[in-house]
């Protein structure tokens, strides 16, 4: 049973990551490749506060989200001035920079060894140690993130953000401060990814930089695009499919020697087929460009 709750918890983390990246990619039209960097910074910030400073869970959570939001704002200042492919490359650059800081700043992050013995959260005297209990916590945070992003995308803010995505010049000519919209979307997305990072750190109980590589950023992007970008249901469907599909493939009987490779192959093939027949994503209204 714990296995099922484990999968549910992982899905809920990717729902948070997908919903937040969807603000940047789906609603803001900015294809970002540094989402795992924000996820990782959130995980490290809270882990350091809890392990080194002995802070409790909630204050660590709050500080991690705020600090990463501020860092995302700083990163957005140069990034959002780029368009299209150049924006992708700029975020790729930041992904690499932040990964190497996590990997090489040994005195603080312990480099490749990572940080171990991160405590499970205690909230109001209640220890959230078991897997089902953690899933409940993670679900509560996910619902919070869902409510918050939904409020934003259904508001005039979300509408104008979509207008900026569709035609930046036209939005500018209607008096919109285009940079403000792109920057704030990027910043909010970053701080929400940090929330997923905090949960991940105290769930996994030890973290190291390899969880926050470019591969991870690409995976989160897949969650958004396969589910359907620019849509509130999309990232949820994407997270469920991408996390559970490899697990389900375990149920398909295969010769042991090639099982792992074949699963990878089938997984890849399914993604290609999905994009061939549903380019707008499963829940999406339109293909992302």
């Amino acid at each position: 049973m714990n296995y099922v709750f484990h999968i549910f918890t992982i899905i809920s983390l990717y729902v948070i990551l997908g919903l937040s990246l969807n603000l940047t990619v789906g609603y803001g039209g900015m294809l970002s490749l540094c989402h795992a960097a924000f996820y990782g910074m959130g995980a490290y910030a809270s882990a350091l506060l809890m392990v080194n400073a002995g802070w409790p869970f909630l204050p660590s959570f709050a500080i991690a989200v705020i600090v990463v939001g501020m860092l995302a704002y700083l990163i957005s200042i140069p990034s959002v001035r780029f368009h299209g492919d150049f924006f992708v490359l700029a975020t790729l650059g930041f992904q690499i920079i932040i990964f190497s800081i996590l990997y090489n700043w040994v005195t603080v992050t312990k480099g490749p060894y990572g940080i171990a013995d991160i405590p499970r959260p205690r909230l109001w005297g209640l220890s959230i140690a078991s897997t089902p209990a953690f899933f409940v916590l993670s679900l509560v945070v996910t619902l919070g993130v869902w409510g918050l992003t939904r409020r934003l995308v259904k508001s005039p803010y979300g509408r104008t953000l979509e207008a900026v995505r569709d035609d930046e010049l036209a939005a500018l000519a209607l008096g919109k401060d285009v940079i403000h919209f792109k920057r704030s979307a990027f910043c909010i997305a970053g701080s929400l990814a940090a929330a997923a990072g905090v949960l991940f750190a105290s769930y996994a109980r030890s973290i190291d930089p390899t969880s926050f590589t470019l591969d991870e950023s690409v995976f989160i992007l897949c969650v958004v695009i396969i589910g359907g970008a620019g849509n509130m249901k999309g990232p949820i469907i994407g997270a469920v499919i991408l996390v559970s599909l490899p697990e389900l493939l375990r149920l398909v009987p295969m010769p042991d020697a090639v099982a792992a490779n074949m699963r990878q192959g089938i997984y890849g093939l399914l993604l290609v087929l999905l994009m061939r027949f549903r380019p707008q994503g499963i829940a999406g209204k339109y293909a992302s460009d």
Partner: protein
Amino acid sequence: MEIDSLNKRFGGVVALDDVTLDFPAGVVTAIIGPNGAGKTTLFNVIAGFLKPDSGSVALLPDSDTDGSGRRFDIIGLPPNLIALRGVGVLFQDIRIFKRLSGLENVAVGAKNQPGEKPLNCLFQPARVMAREKEVIEKARQYLDYVGLADKAHLWAEQLSYGQQKLVAIARLLAGDAKVLLLDEPTSGVDPDMVGKLLALIQRLADTDGRAVIIIEHNLNVVKRVGDWVYLMAGGCIEVFGKPEEVLRDSTLREMFPTL
């Protein structure tokens, strides 16, 4: 709106050569000229996409929205601030927000939306909702005004080219544009829709008292709605007058021999 001795060069090419124009409120002013006459450069300078080398573009009290009654120089301002001052531009290729509905397109045009700030959405929902109700109500009225009330919820992408132009005009009205700068409003539009568009343009100037500027290739359009016409060539204003006078002018006859 008043434009005074604008100059703009691109390298050795003179795009605008001491251009002085006047766009009074309540009047449709047409700018015609062959390709390369500097019409688009003029459009981009007024909208703020290009900085001129010298000269001024100023809003006069009757077209300035802040009601201070003073001349307001808009040269050097970024396009979004020029738009907030009441200058609305219709791009030749429309630039509709294609994945928003017609109604949403118009609502985006509205100014003073507290809901455009994420913090307001989270912490002042009542204030955001109150203004949003007004914005949507107004957006409906403007869609109705341009005759698209029944298409409000269609995606802009699904509308015909001419209907998209109407939505784009409604979008400018939602932003309370007092000066409307329309770049080839009838290009690419079917003949049926041309009549509708021209009637609307006429109404914007005559009934609403806005300053309407159209940049046109099509002399028939100019004949039908232009109150005043400037003929541009080689970056200069060649002829100015009533449409009948300008259309009789020999310079124009040389440029448009098929007339």
